[in-house]
């Protein structure tokens, strides 16, 4: 039967339906003629038609179809959510994975609900099931506040198969990553939780059980902040399964890979407590940096496995910068590829974390403004948070401008290194990324190179200045270089302190002078860029208010106009004023100094940032084209 023939049949059928029954046979002969099979076909179809009901929904076919689809749906439901399993009444699905399902259930005659983890019956071999049961018995012996308590284990019949199960205390809590995201705890609190997890893991190690699958999903944080490790040892039972048999809920497998130690991924034999130590460090890394050390999101399975077993965590320097060398080195050690180089036990790892906590890891971030999901607690100098609020877009522009050729007019460019530093700053410098101008400071490597570029003399000067010694005796040019160097190396506090010194000196020498105006403006830019807008605005306002000795408004005062506009940009009620100050100021600078002057360029950057913030992208692009340099 093909398409065309079917159409013919359909046509004839339609006619036949309209034919009164007694005339049908004759009509058939006439229409179908010699084609016996066609006649037979039509006779059958017309007979079937005779059995149809008047009401389409009443039709036997429709009824039968309804029945069978309902049945199919029922079977699907039963597999998804059985009503009973063994002695447990099933209430809800708490979670599901490739290996099994976790239900909320209540055993007959019991008064509390439990978490019932059931392996899909038939998954893996009988040996895997046996191992599951063995692990269950071991787990039943573990008693620790940080480890979920096992109450029962066994086998139930599910969907016609024998499914191993584990009944556990039902832990009220959030997954570790959800907890961090929702509650935004300070770093010290995150460390404390990880320390508690490490202690729990250590307890299990003492009983000969290695978790092997520590990941955010397996650590629940209770409302009181205490963590609980779940799914203990289950991964071990599943290790017998060939990875390829696991379905491509590949997101789930990748979730595990990210925390898996290299030796686990490679399937080597030396998997032991040190593997759990690695995972603990990976968790800590994620809590502090927002992602595990080797992020495998978006990778294919083989690529992810490769990354884990061969990759080098890229964010360790950033972690050191943000949280200090001590914490950084603890994490680093625990993440070593060679298990023997890591902390030998989870307990040792926990002790290290405790030591860090005792040593007073600062809980409050240095810049309240810079609190993000992963608040930075700086040890030496502010490390600019990666998440400055949108309002500091203009501060960011100022920052670029300042870091790049920010020499006050009249200072000589000295040959050699200082110029290289200044030249280098823009190339590897602060970048304003995206409409919200998230500022990304130099990464550690670049910073290191910048410091290395300074001469020994400069470095010792920097060191001296950080102790805020006498700045007298240094030329303005040297001060400017040093100040830039400090900014470039991320030591904002020292740079600001230095500039303050300079300002104080200028005021002491001659209040209200042009020097004071210039110095105020310089300091203003620095403060603005580091987020201290209120103070910056005060300085800019003062600079503008000071009367120049003679002649037109000085460039420094024009700059102060732009700077003040930037400060006001985040204040919604003064937005119009802000816009006017920036645009007018830039125009005036251009008229006075020309478009290519460094000061005009700085103002132009602010204009571009302003226009982008206002959504005037075309104008912004036009202005951006006039910028020299990055």
């Amino acid at each position, binding site marked *: 039967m093909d398409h065309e023939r079917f159409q013919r049949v359909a046509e004839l059928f339609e006619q036949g339906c309209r034919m009164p029954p007694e005339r049908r046979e004759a009509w058939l002969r006439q229409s179908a003629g010699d084609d016996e099979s066609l006649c037979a076909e039509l006779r059958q179809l017309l007979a079937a038609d005779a059995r149809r009901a008047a009401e389409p929904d009443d039709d036997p*076919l429709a009824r039968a*179809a309804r029945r069978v689809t309902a049945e199919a749906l029922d079977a699907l439901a039963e597999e998804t959510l059985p009503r009973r399993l063994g002695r447990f009444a099933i209430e809800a699905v708490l979670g599901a994975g490739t290996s099994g399902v976790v239900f909320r259930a209540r055993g007959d005659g019991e008064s509390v609900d439990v978490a019932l983890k059931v392996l899909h019956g038939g998954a893996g071999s009988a040996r895997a099931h046996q191992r599951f049961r063995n692990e269950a018995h071991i787990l039943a012996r573990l008693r620790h506040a940080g480890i979920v308590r096992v109450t029962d284990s066994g086998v139930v019949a599910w969907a016609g198969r024998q499914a191993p199960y584990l009944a556990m205390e039902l832990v009220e809590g959030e997954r570790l990553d959800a907890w961090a995201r929702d509650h935004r705890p300070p770093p010290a609190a995150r460390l404390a939780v990880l320390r508690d997890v490490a202690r729990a893991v250590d307890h299990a190690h003492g009983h000969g059980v290695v978790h092997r699958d520590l990941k955010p999903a397996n650590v629940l944080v209770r409302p009181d902040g205490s963590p609980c490790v779940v799914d203990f040892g289950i991964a071990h039972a599943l290790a017998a399964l060939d990875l390829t048999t696991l379905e491509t809920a590949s997101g789930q497998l990748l979730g595990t890979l990210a925390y898996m130690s290299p030796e686990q991924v490679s399937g080597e034999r030396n998997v032991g407590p040190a593997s759990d130590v690695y995972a603990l460090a990976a968790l800590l890394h994620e809590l502090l940096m927002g992602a595990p050390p080797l992020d495998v999101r978006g990778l294919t399975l083989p690529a992810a496995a490769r990354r884990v077993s061969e990759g080098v965590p890229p964010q360790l320097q950033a972690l050191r910068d943000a949280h200090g060398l001590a914490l950084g080195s603890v994490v680093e050690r625990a993440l070593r590829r060679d298990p023997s180089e890591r902390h030998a036990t989870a307990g040792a790892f926990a002790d290290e974390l405790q030591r860090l906590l005792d040593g007073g890891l600062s809980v409050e971030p240095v810049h309240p403004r810079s609190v993000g999901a992963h608040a930075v607690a700086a040890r030496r100098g502010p490390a600019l948070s990666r998440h400055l609020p949108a309002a500091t877009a203009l501060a960011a522009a100022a920052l670029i401008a300042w870091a790049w050729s920010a020499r006050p007019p009249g200072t000589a460019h000295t040959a050699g290194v200082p110029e290289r530093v200044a030249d280098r700053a823009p190339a590897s410098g602060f970048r304003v990324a995206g409409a919200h101008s998230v500022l990304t400071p130099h990464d550690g490597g670049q910073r290191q190179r910048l410091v290395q570029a300074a001469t020994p003399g400069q470095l010792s000067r920097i060191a001296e200045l950080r102790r805020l010694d006498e700045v007298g005796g240094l030329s303005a040019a040297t001060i400017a270089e040093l100040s830039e160097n400090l900014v470039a190396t991320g030591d904002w506090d020292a740079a600001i302190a230095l500039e303050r010194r300079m300002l104080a000196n200028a005021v002491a020498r001659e209040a209200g002078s042009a020097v004071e105006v210039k110095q105020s403006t310089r300091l203003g830019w620095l403060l603005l860029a580091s987020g201290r807008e209120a103070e910056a605005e005060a300085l800019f306002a003062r600079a503008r208010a000071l009367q120049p000795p003679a002649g037109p408004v000085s460039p420094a005062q024009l700059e102060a106009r732009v700077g003040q506009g930037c400060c006001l940009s985040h204040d919604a009620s003064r937005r119009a004023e802000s816009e006017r100050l920036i645009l007018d100021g830039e125009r005036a600078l251009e008229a006075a100094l020309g478009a290519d002057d460094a000061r005009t360029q700085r103002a132009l950057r602010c204009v571009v940032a302003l226009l982008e913030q206002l959504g005037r992208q075309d104008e912004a692009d036009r202005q951006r084209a006039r910028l020299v340099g990055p």
Partner: protein
Amino acid sequence: MPIDDVYEDLRRLAEAYFRRQDPGHTLQPTALVHEAWLRLAQGPAIADREHFLAVAATAMRQILVDHARRRGAAKRGGDASRITLDDAVSPAPAPALDLLDLDAALTMLARLDPRKARVVELRFFAGLTLAEVAAVLHVSAVTIGTDWRMARAWLSRELGSAVA
């Protein structure tokens, strides 16, 4: 509205649905599909709704057939006690139709006449009335009526005694 998304939505919805809000009540796929629509779109335009249903019917069919296949054996008869008979179902349990047979027959029909198969699919798996089917397929109700009549006759004959 790509079918994979709808498939996933229906899947998740099916799982959420089966929390036994109403134990003992057999869920009709059509109810599920309509619920899925309500959840997936607020204040739908008619055109969107019909398009959704058209896609959902196929998705639902796929879900159920895939599941039946995974279960291995064809579901024959089934446990009468597990199914709550609703008004639309005849009280006399007939030798039941097999879902996989129905699916196979429909697939065959689709090769011979795609639109007729579509009519059946929309009726059985999305629970549309003939008028609604006509709207979805942008064809007159009369034509759909004719399609249905032929399709049911052909299917009945194909599926034999399983259909009363």
